[in-house]
């Protein structure tokens, strides 16, 4: 049972690390749109991509929202 004296303080540290990670993720906009990403992977173009590839619809603007 002595291990608990080490494990309990460690669990507290891990919880605080989890809180820190969550705050960072939240700041970077991870949780702003929880619906869209799931929809985007469903679909393909029915015409091959043309040479114009300057446009991206990816996460570059996610921070803005």
């Amino acid at each position, binding site marked *: 049972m002595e291990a608990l004296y080490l494990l309990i303080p460690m669990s507290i540290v891990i919880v605080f690390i989890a809180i820190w990670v*969550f705050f960072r993720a939240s700041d970077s906009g991870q949780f702003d749109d929880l619906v869209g990403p799931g929809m985007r992977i469903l679909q393909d173009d029915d015409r091959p991509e043309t040479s114009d590839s300057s446009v991206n619809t990816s996460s570059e603007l996610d921070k803005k929202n």
Partner: protein
Amino acid sequence: MEALYCYHCGLPVLPASSWSVHIAGAERAMCCPGCEAVAQTIVDNGLSDYYVTREGFSPTGDQDALVPAELRLYDAPEVLEQFAEKDAQDAGVCEATFLVDGIRCAACVWLIERRLAGVQGVQAMNLNVATERLHVRWRKDGCKPSDILKAVREVGYTAYPFDAVRHGEQLQRAGKKLFRQVFIAGLSMMQVMMYAVPVYMATDGTMDVDMEGLMRWASLLLTLPAVLYSGLPFFQGAWSNLKSRALGMDVPVALGIAAAFIGSTVATITGKGDVYFDSVTMFIFLLLCSRYLELVARRKAASALEKLQYALPASAARMPGFPDDRSTETVPAAQLCEGDMVLVKPGEAIAADCVIVEGSTAIDLSLLTGESRPQRKESGDALPGGAVNASQAIVVRVTKIARESTLSTLVKLIERAGQGKPQISLWADKVAAWFVAALLVFAVVIFGVWHWIDPSRAWPIAIAVLVVSCPCALSLATPSALAAATDRLVRQGVLAVQPHVLETLYRTTHVIFDKTGTLTLGKPVVRNVAAFGQADAMSCVKAGAALEASSAHPLAQAIVNAARHPQGGDVVATDIEHTAGQGLEGCIDGVRYRLGSAAFVAGIVRREAPAAPPSGFTPVYLGTSDGWLARFDLADKIRADAKAVVEYFQAHGKKVILLSGDQDAVTQRVASELGIETAHGAFLPDQKLEFVQRLQLDGAVVAMIGDGINDAVVLRAADVSFAMGGGAALAQTHADTVLLSGRLSSVVDAYEAASQTMSVIRQNLAWATLYNIVAIPAAAVGVLNPWLSGIGMSLSSAVVVINALRLRRVPRAPAAVTREQGVFESQAA
């Protein structure tokens, strides 16, 4: 006959139509050229996969919405500045947020993003499905904002520029913070529970004192973020409540949290007594969850209003060539400069602070100052922006640039929609305040009593009493139901401006309809012109059109439209003077003309009136002092849904009455056709007002549905009023409710929403009362411990909010009705 439905939008296809598009190897029938154009665009862009994966039919491709001229207004640099930001590094790159309507499934997202990717100059875009916001970055030299909006409209969606800086950010930040607080509280709750369970499970003597102490200290540490960060909203709420000397629902909650936390901390440090860290964290978490639910509901309600606010930039009719040339051009209000001449028609809001140059009129300042009576303004008087021109067309010179004035009008209207609280809600708040006060006293008494019976249980029981009581359910019951109902109504095209609408509508005993534009389409057409004198019919129409050019009355528009068909020299009328409900008078080439009812025109002609038209037509007479010139016979079509609406209200025990300024014969004909028993024609605004007031004296609760300028007074006098969306701006600002959809059946929607809302409110209040009656005594006798109380209270709040959210569901309307009406409208036009 086989019924055929549009492949794009699902509406029935009329047998005679021949629109179709080749999709996925077959010809698909389309219901209208709008849908055909949208579908063709989708196929031409190589996006026909959309039809394979979509989960429902697409929004109807409204032909008018495809390429509206107003979109170009967004390209003006002044307007662009308002909604777009320049990129910090590259001045040629712009960024803006747009609001997109009608996103329903994955296929919509894909379609919009692919279509935009094909627009030249667009560098990056991101569509946030949850908030319906589209973020776009584009090169200024590559494309214009209107190209982006057009691209979105081409595939069948509507997009508006969205001013994120001004509005969304604050709301969004609040939502984000609450989400974080919920998350932290949840994390901390789960961890604390892990330390609490062993202590509960351990039988006496199996856990040594050091271990228990360690568990307690660990729980204390993990409860800290929950209390100090997640619990903030309760402490802040309680503090502001106390500062304003009111007892809100946050007070007992904050007291309960603080008491439990401090008690447990003391017990941990001294090593004596019980700890309730698990109850504290769970309580905070569950309460925050119900708050988060409420916020989501309220934000949904607000978002619908927000969309209205950004629908279009307010525009103005500028007269660049004044006074030599009286032609006008539509410009964004933001583009008006000092010294610009602007034509303001009756019923229009004044876009900027200005001075009258020509004409005199009455100005309605009620939105700005609260002064309800229109004020007389002459040439040379200054007018504030945002005021409404009540009686006659005027030409004004802009003295200050627009920016604030018109915007503030809109913002005020929308804020007014959210601010006020209806009676029933005020009542609930008052009850909740008393409830909290009584509760605090009760908790102290219970603490004292238990201290005497069993001192070790006094503390947890007092906490349980504080926590279990749910004034939240009491004061949440009404606002959450009203917010949900308002939101649903906005999505159905009904904007409730006043807070009491739903409550009053439910109690309504009499429903009064105006005729023109309300029961009828309000788009009368000139069917026949009878010329009496020297002038031929066409020149009479032209003279009439010149007189009516600046009037917003539907009859006026019909005459103007009649004159538009063949081209000819423009006739200009000046010194136009309106007489409400009668007609107007003006000067053409130095001759005074009168246009309007027979009695009014007879005032200048002074001869016997010519023969009346066959009954059922509305005659408008034209005359000068030399004699009668012409009679225009106008006829108006009854709305397709009018009969159903009238029958609905009659079936629900309301007395339906028709009041009209129109001739009695016409009014009676419409009334008998619709089955309305009481109908009065030829009523002037004053008479209508008197009629309504007399009903009210007899104890009737009157709902009035109308449009047009003449109705403003009556609309204000009625207990609850509706203005048709197509009506003049003045009527809208005076009515309690605006029917934005332009469909009469929206009144039925509103009534249904009202009765549903009232029953939901009653259910909620009953539930809150029942819960408190059962739970508080249970906690007081010690049956409930603090964490059970926490669950009970949160569940009770959640039940109330979720019950209210049921109101948000829009009942499915049969598509056929809208379609049918569309056909009628196109016939009438």
